[in-house]
């Protein structure tokens, strides 16, 4: 049973009306061209705006964790602080380093930003708000996000600076290790959902989110995904590639201005991307909380637009990531690799097997309680 409530606040109403309007007035080619360009502009704008909001939110929440007030001078409650920072970063000079590899030095930030941009395009922000819906969505996201590390490695090498180099090597080792865990955690859920396509995966979670559906196995996978995703973004207790007390800033020590801005943006957006993939895969994506049988409740929940659900779930996960970041001290490199190779990966492999058994023996919540 698919509930078709009239949802007046959905953006998909607007987009489909716009599509029909264009189609009735223009030929197929021009319609598609205009729509592609608009989608591209929208994604780029959303990328920048989300990064600005995240930077503000992070600084505020960080401050609250440290019993401070955070930015509160630029605009009301410091709301314009990240805009001011952006203007500053755009105006700064791009410094050329002597005896650095000029070509690789300039190419490296683009790897980083393109990788996170490609991932960003595949995220379903709301009903009908997904730029591209591959039938291999989960695999695509994992594959494309692995390109970003090349930017880090090249940046570290081409800066001709030992701190950058050490930071890049650490980052590389960390990323390659944790990529495995996050991939396995996602594959666990692919086994449960039986599809890799984001839209189908979300539709399958209408009454029972994946994290509840696979109960114990799903929860383990969720926690592992959050840990390894957090490690992949080089943040929180896993920020030893840019450990400022030892390596000044790690791989982006020598960058300034817009190039540094690229790394900065990509770092924040990667945090958002990890959170939104976790939302989509584990927490039912843009679907509201719905309980089978409670039609009135479902109807009320359905009135809240899907993008609000998506962003609030993602925001919750981002808050969780910040909470972890400001709770724990930085790991040593051997502790970091121990955590991955001795704990997360073996647990993950066992967990994958457990999930296969759960699915094959019909012990998932959906099968047990007959939820659609």
């Amino acid at each position, binding site marked *: 049973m698919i509930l078709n409530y009239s949802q007046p606040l959905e953006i998909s109403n607007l987009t489909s009306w716009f599509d029909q309007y264009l189609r009735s007035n223009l030929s197929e080619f021009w319609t598609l061209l205009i729509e592609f360009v608009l989608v591209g502009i929208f994604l780029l704008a959303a990328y920048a705006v989300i990064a600005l909001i995240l930077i503000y939110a992070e600084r505020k929440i960080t401050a609250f964790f440290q019993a401070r007030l955070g930015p509160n001078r630029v605009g009301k409650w410091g709301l314009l602080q990240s805009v001011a920072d952006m203007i500053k970063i755009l105006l700064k000079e791009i410094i050329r380093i002597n005896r650095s590899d000029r070509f690789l030095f300039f190419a490296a930030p683009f790897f980083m930003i393109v990788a996170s941009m490609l991932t960003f395009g595949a995220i379903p922000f709301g009903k009908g708000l997904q730029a591209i819906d591959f039938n*291999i969505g989960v*695999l695509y996201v994992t594959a494309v996000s692995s390109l970003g590390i090349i930017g880090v490695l090249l940046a570290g*090498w081409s800066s001709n600076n030992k701190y950058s180099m050490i930071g890049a090597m650490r980052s590389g080792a960390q990323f390659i290790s944790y990529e495995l865990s996050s991939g396995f955690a996602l594959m666990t859920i692919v086994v449960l959902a039986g599809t890799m396509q984001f839209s189908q995966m979300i539709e399958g979670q209408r009454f029972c989110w994946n994290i509840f559906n696979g109960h114990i196995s799903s929860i383990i996978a969720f926690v592992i995904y959050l840990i390894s995703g957090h490690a992949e973004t080089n943040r929180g207790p896993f920020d030893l590639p840019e450990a400022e007390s030892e390596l000044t800033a790690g791989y982006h020590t020598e960058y300034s201005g817009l190039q540094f801005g690229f790394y900065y943006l990509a770092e924040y957006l990667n945090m958002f991307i990890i959170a939104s993939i976790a939302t989509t895969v584990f927490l039912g994506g843009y679907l509201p909380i719905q309980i089978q049988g409670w039609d009135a409740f479902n109807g009320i929940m359905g009135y809240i637009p899907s993008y609000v659900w998506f962003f609030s779930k993602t925001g919750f996960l981002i808050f969780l990531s910040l909470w972890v970041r400001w709770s724990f001290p930085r790991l040593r490199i051997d502790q970091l690799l121990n955590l991955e190779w001795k704990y997360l990966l073996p647990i993950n492999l066992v967990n994958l097997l457990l999930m296969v058994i759960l699915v094959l023996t019909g012990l998932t919540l959906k099968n047990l309680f007959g939820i659609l």
Partner: protein
Amino acid sequence: MAQQIIFYILAIIISLFSIMAVTSKQIIRSATYLLFVLIATAGFYLLLGYNYLFAVQVAVYAGGVMVLFIFAILLTNRPGESHENELPVRRIAAGITAVAGLALSAHIIYWNIKKISQIVTISDISPAQLGHTMLGTGKYQYLLPFEVISILLLACIVGAIMIARKR
């Protein structure tokens, strides 16, 4: 039309960066150019609609193998140093090997295309279908090659442990 344009762009990128990859004197730059070639190849797969192959190409070659390449290069002695030209004998030998390899693969591709004489257009394959094909034992299913390749990887892992083991 659009597909043709994209194809030509990708083809130019691939041929240009392939040449640059072999002519560049710095090994790390060669690796970067090779990376561009691999990504453009992934673009071909996307153009053909082979989404799965695209993702695998990006994940395995661009994201996996190239990262390890760059990692290994960074760990070598002086990665940024330009290389001296090799001896003429070795250069000629390398040239002959390259031409022979090119001829062999060109011959095989040409022969096979002639034999089939039509490119099979595959409609959107679902990942489930792919999985069944890859791990099935029936006709046109590939469990045996799959497992053989895993034995190869296993041998690699055992070898790596042997090398890394403390005596």
